[in-house]
């Protein structure tokens, strides 16, 4: 339960009001995940935690984090 797992959205089911569900590929294993509380589309990577997506895996943020690491590594402070 504590660990969130990244997966790729294969299809989205909007048929139930206020319960947006997605079929998500976790390295070959398919699971239905609730994506109601995030903004995600087919092809996006999401972090699934106990059957619910808590965040998208965003390339822009990932790059920012890596740049922050770089700044810290070069810091003489």
């Amino acid at each position, binding site marked *: *339960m*504590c*660990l*969130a797992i*990244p997966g790729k959205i294969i299809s989205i089911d909007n048929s*139930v*009001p*206020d*319960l947006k569900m997605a079929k998500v590929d976790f390295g070959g294993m398919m*699971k239905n995940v*609730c994506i*109601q*509380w995030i903004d995600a589309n087919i092809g996006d*990577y999401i*972090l699934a*935690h*106990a*059957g*619910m997506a*808590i*965040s998208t*895996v965003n*390339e822009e943020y*990932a*790059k920012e984090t*890596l740049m922050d*690491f*770089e700044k*810290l*590594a*070069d*810091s*003489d*402070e």
Partner: protein
Amino acid sequence: MKYIDEYRDNDQVQRLIEAINNAVVNSWSIMEICGGQTHSIARYGIDNMLPDKISLLHGPGCPVCVTPTYIIDSAIEIALQPHVIMTSFGDMMRVPGSKLDLLGAKAKGADVRILYSTLDAVDLAEKNPDKEVVFFAVGFETTTPLHLTAIKEASRRKVNNFSIITSLFTVPAAIDAILSEADCKVDGFLAAGHVCAVMVYHEYHDISR
């Protein structure tokens, strides 16, 4: 971008460790909040890479660790009712109550099942209209929206034999409680990543001040 390889750059890790070594002059006790962080620290040997002056303390961010015994006892008492299917995350099965854990209740004949998601319990209730399906809903800001989504979905589907027993906490309140202890020796916290993914980090500004 591969998202994993980029975070495992050996050269960058060495330079980060060196920067940390240069920055740490005094002793620091840092508490990690999240069970996932504890797992990563142990798995990748991060505690061994850090300077001796940094001590890592394991914090309260694992629902399994902070669910009160009396609530586990209540869940077990409910599970032992003949018309009940008790469900929860796998992590909760071996957490001891005062006499038994949920697996112990199962051994005594209770119908106890491990589910991945609270929404699965709504499906189970729909398929078993003659049973009361109870989900033992534990967790923090991360799982609470899921439990509430399941309640809403049960209501929409008019599933009346689904209920939950809750033991839910917020992380900033847990941090406040630790800091308010007179003998608290924590100098800093590693904020819970998944909780921040849900709640963002604004709640932590006051704590850091």
